């Protein structure tokens, strides 16, 4: 379509329905390609010309400030001045990399980058200034950037910091293209796992809204089973009015069988029906009475990044260019090429800074919507999801229902039984279609749900088992995957076990640890916080308590935390102070590792006090942060963070402290009130005097 002709017609209100008829999209999922980084590939990340270097960041920048960390490594290895290295974000013409997930960006990418930079440095030292660099790998001990000193272990100003504080365009929604229009794809208020589609709508009323350009029926691949109706306008503010005027009547194929989500995952109901299907540990605990028998439930929770996801799509001569804030540009590229029948080389996805991701941006959604609408109207289209769409159409932390039992003999754990029912993380319904779910769910567990479910303590004969249930809402990766809620369940049970044994919570943990690194973070946080009971009643019936917790993330990264809380008569919990000690081996940038600890502690506070995503009839009804709150400034206490640097290569830092913060707060509430929090987020009613 001729763009100018189209726009002229649109202004006259003549062009209404474009791309009539819903497209047929493959129900075979695109499998993510996850190449591990290696030094050879890393040569493609760094280049040199005229005394300046360019580092093409192989990771998504989403607030972990990995641009700063990898730039430190590049500068240290190259021996280059900070200002001579320019950092750019990758697009999909760069060497393919795996998704930015799992706190791997220093752990897995530091050495390949260092090797590539060392080889580039050698080439420059030899007087070369043109051509390709040959990789000569060397022992890690000869890589300057993997030894402490200079920029390694320093905290330079953060990359893009100036752009952030001066309001420069850094995010996908900040992209503007010539003749760009604004789009939205409307969906039924229904479960995304129940078929739904637009049935009737009021075209004339929509056309009458100033700024209206087009309705688009072919909106690209569905989201789950939900087929949308696209609208395009000349101004973003017109989209609300157009949506309202359209008054779409939706066809919805009935109810979801497990619309009552918390009942569907009730661990006791499942256990009454027999053993859970997937086993993490199976040592056959002895039968008999349990000293601890705890039920712990956490609900669905949204990621809640402040930036609703956004994309700009532009078609030109059969090629598609998309700007997106995504954790996996190559996967988005592959999905787009499959959905729109393009050669992968005909699609270029340019990454932008993510306005918060937290595991929530690893699949392709808004990018395909923007591509479909831009194709239909023949001019670039920007889509930014509304907050309500983020809740309704995104995927979320799965709810989880835990039953943890422990037996103690002479102050030591002898038997342990931890059962959990949750929903999928790795095999998310957001990617795995229903026909494939039926095939895979019979035998496949989900390592994301199981992450961190094996307690990091010597718990005796242990059975650790879980099951996963398909839900009407999409669930998948959320900061730390299952590790956060699993650690909360474990740390709650450890605390009760210590109480049952009559042993101090710190001493009880230390008595069940054979890993010196775990003992190290616990001892240090105890020292920092001057560990000791602070329970008691203050003025006006305010109950005060202190709690401790610790954990290991992905078997290599350690954290321990202490929290002090006050609980007033009405049951309001205020976290007064937190301490956290983290050991992730060699630290490139202590300030930013601390920042990740701070963030994880706030996420831990959210897990205990705020995070929930209300549903009705199997679909998300939350529309605002009022309905699905996240921690606010006044809820967050002063924090003391300390880093231990064991003599190890760098490990992950972005998710670790989420295994310690929640348990510390929950245990502090227990210490303050005598009431064990079992359903999260904690309600006032459960703690009222």
């Amino acid at each position, binding site marked *: 379509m001729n763009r100018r002709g189209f726009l002229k017609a649109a202004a006259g209100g003549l062009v209404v329905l474009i791309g009539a008829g819903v497209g047929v999209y493959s129900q075979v999922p695109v499998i993510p390609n996850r190449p591990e980084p290696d030094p050879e590939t890393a040569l493609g990340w760094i280049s040199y010309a005229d005394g300046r270097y360019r580092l093409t960041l192989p990771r998504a920048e989403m607030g972990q400030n990995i641009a700063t960390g990898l730039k430190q490594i590049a500068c240290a290895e190259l021996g280059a001045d900070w200002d001579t290295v320019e950092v750019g974000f990758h697009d999909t013409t760069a060497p393919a990399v795996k998704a930015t997930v799992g706190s791997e960006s220093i752990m897995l990418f530091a050495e390949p980058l260092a090797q590539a930079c060392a080889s580039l440095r050698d080439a420059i030292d030899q007087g070369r200034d043109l051509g390709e660099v040959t990789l000569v790998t060397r022992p890690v001990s000869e890589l300057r950037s993997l030894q402490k000193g200079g920029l390694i272990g320093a905290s330079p100003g953060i990359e893009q910091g100036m752009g952030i504080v001066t309001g420069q365009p*850094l995010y996908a929604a900040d992209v503007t293209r010539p003749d760009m229009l604004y789009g939205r794809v409307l969906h039924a208020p229904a479960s995304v796992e129940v078929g739904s589609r637009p049935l009737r709508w009021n075209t004339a009323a929509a056309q009458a809204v100033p700024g209206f350009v087009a309705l688009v029926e072919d909106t690209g691949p569905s989201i789950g089973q939900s087929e949308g109706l696209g609208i395009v306008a000349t101004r973003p503010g017109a989209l609300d009015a157009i949506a309202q005027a359209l008054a779409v009547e939706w066809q919805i194929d009935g109810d979801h069988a497990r619309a009552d989500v918390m009942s569907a995952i009730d661990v006791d109901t499942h256990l009454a029906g027999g053993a859970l299907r997937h086993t993490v540990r199976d040592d056959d605990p002895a039968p008999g009475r349990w000293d601890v028998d705890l039920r712990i439930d956490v609900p669905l929770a949204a990621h809640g990044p*402040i930036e609703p996801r956004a994309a700009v799509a532009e078609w030109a001569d059969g090629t598609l260019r998309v700007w997106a804030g995504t954790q996996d540009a190559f996967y988005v590229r592959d999905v787009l090429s499959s959905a729109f029948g393009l050669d992968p080389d005909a699609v270029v996805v340019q990454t932008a800074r993510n306005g918060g991701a937290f595991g929530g941006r690893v699949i392709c959604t808004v990018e395909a919507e923007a591509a479909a609408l831009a194709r239909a109207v023949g001019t670039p289209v920007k889509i930014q999801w509304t*907050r309500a769409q983020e809740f309704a159409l995104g995927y979320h932390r799965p709810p989880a229902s835990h039953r943890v039992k422990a037996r103690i003999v002479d102050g030591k754990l002898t038997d342990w039984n931890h059962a959990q029912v949750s929903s999928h993380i790795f095999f998310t319904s957001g990617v795995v279609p229903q026909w494939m779910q039926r095939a895979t769910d019979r035998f496949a567990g989900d390592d994301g749900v199981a992450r961190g479910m094996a307690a990091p303590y010597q718990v005796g004969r242990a059975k650790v088992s879980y099951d996963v249930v398909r839900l009407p809402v999409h669930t998948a990766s959320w900061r730390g995957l299952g590790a956060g809620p699993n650690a909360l369940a474990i740390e709650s049970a450890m605390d009760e076990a210590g109480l049952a044994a009559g042993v101090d919570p710190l001493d009880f943990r230390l008595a069940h640890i054979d890993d010196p690194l775990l003992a190290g973070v616990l001892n240090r946080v105890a020292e920092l916080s001057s560990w000791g009971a602070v329970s008691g009643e203050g003025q006006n019936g305010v109950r005060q308590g202190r709690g401790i917790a610790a954990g290991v993330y992905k078997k290599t990264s350690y954290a321990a935390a202490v929290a002090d809380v006050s609980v007033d008569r009405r049951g309001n919990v205020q976290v007064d102070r937190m301490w956290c000690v983290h050991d992730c081996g060699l630290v490139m940038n202590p300030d930013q590792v601390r920042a990740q600890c701070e963030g994880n502690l706030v996420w831990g506070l959210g897990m205990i006090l705020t995070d929930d995503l209300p549903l009705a009839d199997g679909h998300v009804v939350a529309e605002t942060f009022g309905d699905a709150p996240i921690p606010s400034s006044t809820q967050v206490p002063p924090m003391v963070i300390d880093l231990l640097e064991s003599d190890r290569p760098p490990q992950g830092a972005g998710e670790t402290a989420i295994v310690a913060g929640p348990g510390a707060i929950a245990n502090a509430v227990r210490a303050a009130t005598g009431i064990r929090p079992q359903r999260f987020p904690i309600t006032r009613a459960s703690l009222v005097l």
Partner: protein
Amino acid sequence: MILNGQVQDIPEEWANEPLLYLLREHFDLKGAKFGCGVGICGACTVIVDGIATRSCITNAGDVEGAEVRTIEGLANDDVLHPVQQAWLDQSVPQCGYCQAGQIMSAVALLEQTPRPTEDDVDAAMDGNLCRCGTYGRIRAAIMQASETVR
């Protein structure tokens, strides 16, 4: 309106749009962000006649004749505003998306209350959400900036 010190016309077709979109899409000032659309999160905060204002729920036409300041207008040539400088010194931003709104709320606070108490900071800033959890650093940066502003 006076936008960052310059007199600007509000085109008729944008008068019924949220001020946020007038700023972002018409004037190409991308600092203020869309976060929630209902004035809860504060990512869209700009300063209108000295008051921190949620631009996502402010009608563009309603700022006719008003003085509107956005984060792009804070620095004086190459010299950052003390609040911007404090944000860099404290390495406040993680993802950074909420920070323009946080900074504008902080600037408005310090203009009205150059020596804020903890309660003043709570009252001014509790409506600006940050999912990354940078609240402690925001507080430290405001206190640093208040020293400079004095």
